[in-house]
């Protein structure tokens, strides 16, 4: 009995060791796959944020280069000279400003038309056209330039105001050289934009005016979409959030630009430069990775974070498939091997048991031969036993009857 139990233990030890090794292998495989996905996703997030930062910095460089154009510089210098030479400049600016604001929004006054139709303004529109063509989407919501007194000189289209000297962006650019504004959301068009303004200087370094551009976030969204369409595994959701959780872009259609990140779902989790966490929503686990811009020290505009969300069951699919396979194999193995091992152990133990019974009978004085069967070693054992019985029977028959 101990013999057959030992066979069972031996076989099941092999099964258990294989199973435990298999489960441990799956556990390690799952962890390394998850680590790899997390690492790759964090890299993609960081790359996206860097690309968005680069794009935004490129727009600042573009405006700086634009401001150095001699065509624009000459027009602004001429305007400065014209206004500077006026004895009642303040009165003139005030009158023009009132006339500008009094005009209905859909009407362009002759004075406005003069500015809009000027050669430099036409060049500005041409630049905008080619930029839009190059990037395949609207790049600038508006670009215009003012003179040193804050009044419009060059503009792509009609602006809301004529004078800007009291506005933050104008004062910021005039005093500090550059102004980078925060994101502004247009609730009606569900789009967002941000303002960049830079100081315009002549060749001697004197301030001659300010250039302002209102940059649309559409190209940023295009960059995100293009990049993430080719990512494997495809994220369930990805979004670019501004400081405070405001959505700049989300692939989730329910999260509109300018809205707060859905139910502040990541609130408190987006710590450090980059990282990841597992979030459970309605019993389903999601892997969330994120990366903050490292340029947020440069301007609050860059205080954005790129977030990618995966459904854990989707990204861990290969591990789960392997697990189901392992579980099936284990169940099949346990059932079939149990049946086979029970039969084999019985088969192996039976002849040994018969020899044991035979020896027990022999000790009691009964000599019974056993039909040789089983494996070679067992048949040999039975043969030896039978020969012993034969010899004993011969000895008994040869010895005289008492």
């Amino acid at each position: 009995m101990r013999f057959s139990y030992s066979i069972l233990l031996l076989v099941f030890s092999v099964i258990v060791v294989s199973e435990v090794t298999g489960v441990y292998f799956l556990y390690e495989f799952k962890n390394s796959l998850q680590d790899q996905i997390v690492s790759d996703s964090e890299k993609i997030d960081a790359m996206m944020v860097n690309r968005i930062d680069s794009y935004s910095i490129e727009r600042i460089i573009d405006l700086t280069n634009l401001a150095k154009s001699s065509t624009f510089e000459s027009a602004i210098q001429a305007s400065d000279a014209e206004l500077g030479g006026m004895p009642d400049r303040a009165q003139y600016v005030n009158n023009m400003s009132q006339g500008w604001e009094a005009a209905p929004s859909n009407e362009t006054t002759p004075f406005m038309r003069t500015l809009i139709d000027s050669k430099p303004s036409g060049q500005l529109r041409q630049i905008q056209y080619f930029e839009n063509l190059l990037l395949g989407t609207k790049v600038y919501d508006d670009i215009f330039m003012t003179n040193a007194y804050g009044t419009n000189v060059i503009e792509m289209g009609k602006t809301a105001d004529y004078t800007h000297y009291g506005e933050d962006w104008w004062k910021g650019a005039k005093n500090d050289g550059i102004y980078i504004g925060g994101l502004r959301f247009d609730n009606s068009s569900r789009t967002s934009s941000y303002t960049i303004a830079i100081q315009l200087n002549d060749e001697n370094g004197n301030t001659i005016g300010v250039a302002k551009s209102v940059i649309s976030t559409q190209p940023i969204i295009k960059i995100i979409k293009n990049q993430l369409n080719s990512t494997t595994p495809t994220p369930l959701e990805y979004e670019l959030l501004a400081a405070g959780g405001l959505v700049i872009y989300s692939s989730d259609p329910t999260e509109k630009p300018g809205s707060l990140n859905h139910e502040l779902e990541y609130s408190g989790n987006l710590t450090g430069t980059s990282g990841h966490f597992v979030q459970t929503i309605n019993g389903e686990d999601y892997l969330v990775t994120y990366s903050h811009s490292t340029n947020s020290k440069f301007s609050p505009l860059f205080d954005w974070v790129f977030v990618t969300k995966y459904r854990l069951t989707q990204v861990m699919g290969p591990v789960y498939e392997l697990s189901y396979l392992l579980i099936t194999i284990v169940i099949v193995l346990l059932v079939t091997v149990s049946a086979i091992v029970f039969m084999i152990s019985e088969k192996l133990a039976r002849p040994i048991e018969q020899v044991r019974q035979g020896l027990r009978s022999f000790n009691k004085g009964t000599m019974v031969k056993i039909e040789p069967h089983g494996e070679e070693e067992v048949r040999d054992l039975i043969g030896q036993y039978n020969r012993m019985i034969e010899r004993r029977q011969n000895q008994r028959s040869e010895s005289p009857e008492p």
Partner: protein
Amino acid sequence: MMLKSRPRRLQTLVVLIAIISAIWAIPDFVGPDIAQISSDLTNIALTVFLAVTAFFQLSQIRREAQDKITWVIFAVFAISYTAAQHIWAVNELIFDTRPFPSLADAAFLVDTLCLIAFFMLYVRPYKQSISRKMLAIATIPSSLVVLVSAYYYALSNSTDTFMNQILLFSYPFLDAIALVPATLGIMIWLKNKSDFPLLAICSSMIPLAIGDVSFQITTQNNTYYTGSFVDLFFYIQIVSLTFGVYVLSNTIRKNSEEKEA
């Protein structure tokens, strides 16, 4: 080969419990993560050997009509226990899902119900030796288990759902039922000290009941993790039960041989 004498069997059981305690303690000393993996894998191994022993015992008594149902129930218990531990381990290690509550609990409930039936049937042949006084004494540990468990259930400010808390409470409650025949078995052994498997099998209910009450308390206060001290009680239960059944198989065979002789 001679079967082990009684004191040696007890010694062997103590050594096995010491080994399994070391298998629990070393990973727990390293850290909760290692303890979790180690505990999940050890539980798989232990329950598979319990199931093998259960089926072996079933094969040993297949000619004896009287005990067949007892050991069929025991085999069902062992299989569902093995299935439950597999589901628990796979949920926790591979699927990263909380193993409690899960499908594993369905299997755990089946095995606990089987355990109640098993102990009742296992102790039934000894009913002539059970006095009313013994029965009264046997209800004391069970009442204690229910009281402690109910006290912590009432105290709980856990955010778990009502169903989860009921499920948590159900394990000690069902254990308390199985503990009555198990305690009777221990008392019978204490009287004549002749049947070692009775002691090993019945005493396995004690660590199980302690383990389930501890599981309830630690889960309620969110301190439970797989591989914690609670699991040591489950290890001891399985080892004690497996060894008891193994010795019983030997005893059955020896007795039948003696009868034949």
